[in-house]
């Protein structure tokens, strides 16, 4: 038996169908009745209904999928898509930060460096991972390891999945603003290809610190935003419960970001979200990473840097009222 999938609020009607199918199956087994036709009909209805639901998700529903507790995490992709992973823990100067994992690995036989936010699988793991919210030392560890890749000419692949930087006392004392800023600055200089994969929540500064890439790709139901919908709602309406409206206002879905030129590609997710079909999701990501590495690896350092600079140089929309 696969573990029970956590059901999101907007999926409730699907669960009712699922339950009915399960009941019929049980009944058909215990009673030797042939209910296959009924089961088939209901299954088709379930699939159609799920497709329908997933075809017109609201930004808030997407946010819920992006945060799904069973959504595949950085380590899931690390295990599935990479080999020979050697996790490195040392930022050298700071305690290790378990909200970020990084290390050496191979991708399709080629050595790469992988860095990513890591949320927990369950409550205990989430405490260990600080819910994927890094402290400054996490960014600094990531930077040290990315610099290793840069020094030895290995591509960097980052996975973004964080609610954001941890708003704590010590994080401030240890200069989390500096750490985030430093990563942006240093990643600008890198002489190797950087592929950023936004797989879950791309939360503000915490995401940006791993988010400067030659290619930025994003899972269909991931989000990427300057502020969480809840945070935005409390500022706008002094009411965090209006997060749904804020999610809409913020334009934080993969489609929105593609339109703004902030990401290069949306990586399709299976209907029902990545957590319902990890293998397909992983394969889609694998293809996308392979594609961008193939594109970027032949480029000269100059070309790579110019391209990266040019890309971010033009981010922003404004008018000149001269």
């Amino acid at each position, binding site marked *: 038996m696969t573990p029970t999938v956590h059901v999101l609020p907007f999926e409730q009607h699907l669960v009712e169908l699922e339950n009915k199918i399960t009941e019929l199956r049980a009944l058909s087994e215990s009673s030797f009745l042939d209910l296959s036709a009924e089961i088939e009909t209901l299954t088709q209805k379930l699939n159609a209904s799920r497709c329908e639901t997933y075809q017109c998700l609201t930004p808030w529903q997407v946010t819920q999928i992006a945060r799904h507790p069973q959504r595949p995490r950085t380590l899931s992709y690390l295990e599935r898509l990479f080999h020979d992973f050697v996790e490195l823990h040392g930022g050298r100067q700071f305690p290790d930060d378990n909200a970020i994992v990084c290390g050496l690995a191979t991708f399709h036989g080629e050595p790469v460096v992988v860095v990513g936010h890591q949320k927990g699988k369950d409550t205990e793991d989430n405490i260990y991972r600080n819910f994927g919210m890094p402290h400054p030392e996490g960014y600094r560890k990531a930077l040290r390891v990315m610099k290793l890749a840069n020094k030895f000419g290995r591509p960097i692949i980052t996975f973004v999945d964080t609610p954001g*930087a941890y708003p704590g006392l010590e994080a401030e004392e240890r200069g989390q*603003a500096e750490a985030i*800023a430093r990563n942006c600055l240093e990643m600008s200089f890198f002489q190797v290809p950087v592929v950023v994969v936004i797989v879950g929540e791309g939360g503000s500064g915490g*995401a940006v610190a791993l988010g400067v890439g030659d290619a930025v790709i994003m899972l269909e139901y991931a989000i990427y935003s*300057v502020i969480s919908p809840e945070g935005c709602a409390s500022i706008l309406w002094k009411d965090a419960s209006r997060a749904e409206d804020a999610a809409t206002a913020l334009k934080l879905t993969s489609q929105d*970001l593609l339109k703004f030129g902030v990401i290069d590609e949306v990586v399709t997710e299976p209907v029902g979200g990545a957590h319902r079909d990890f293998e397909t999701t992983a394969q889609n990501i694998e293809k996308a990473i392979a594609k961008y590495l193939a594109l970027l690896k032949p480029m000269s350092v100059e070309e790579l840097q110019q391209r990266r600079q040019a890309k971010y140089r033009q981010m922003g*929309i*404004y008018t000149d009222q001269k």
Partner: protein
Amino acid sequence: MGWFAKTRRNIIPSNVWEKCKRCEEAIYRKDLEKNFWVCQKCDYHFALPNLDRINLLADEGTFEEFDAALASDDPLQFQGVVPYRERLKKSQAKTLVKEAITTGYAKICGLPVVLAVFNFDFMGGSMGSVVGEKIVRACENAIQRRHPFVLVSTSGGARMDEGILSLMQMIKTGMAVARLSMERIPFISFLADPTTGGVTASVAMLGDVILAEPGALIGFAGPRVIEQTIKQTLPKGFQRAEFLKEKGVIDMVVHRSQAKNTVGKILRFFA
């Protein structure tokens, strides 16, 4: 007469009293202006309007503004309580400028610089596409002219109304500083009260030398968010300039009366 005289002095009468926010002394506005908005009794540093800041630092008559005509669009069609477009219009009307940062050429203690000063009165000095673009252009100007870059920040952070595009300004400005750095153009970052959020976590924290005004609140997360998260009252002085100096996050705390002089000294080191 400083550069700002033309634009600002004539709109606010100076024969009024202001109350010090720390010692509650009532001070004649004219005296405050003369003292660059520092309480003579308790040394409290009032918020210094953007134009006064330029006058504080730039040698008289040397400031020449860049890119004054750049103005924000509304890429998200952002609908808050008040639509973004309206908020922009109001801020523009109030401040008589188009956006939350003023950039330009200036001399400080006789040394040429590119100077950029955030304008907190304009939507809390928040950084959207225009602020990002103006900072980048200022950096590019600094590189072209081989002048040091001096940035005075006072900002609530990224401008939410521009969503992900405002977040991208962190990378965009960080990259501009990377270019400054590659070209070995000095960058002095001066932090005024408050400097928080995405501005701190990008350009403001990347100075070769980082100065701050006494008492300035400097941080990434705001104190209220932190208190909510850790469910504790923050210690007194937390995230203030003096505290951050102790924590090694910034280099110096500089009294406003010494600001120009100190920037001048540092510029001479780089000259």
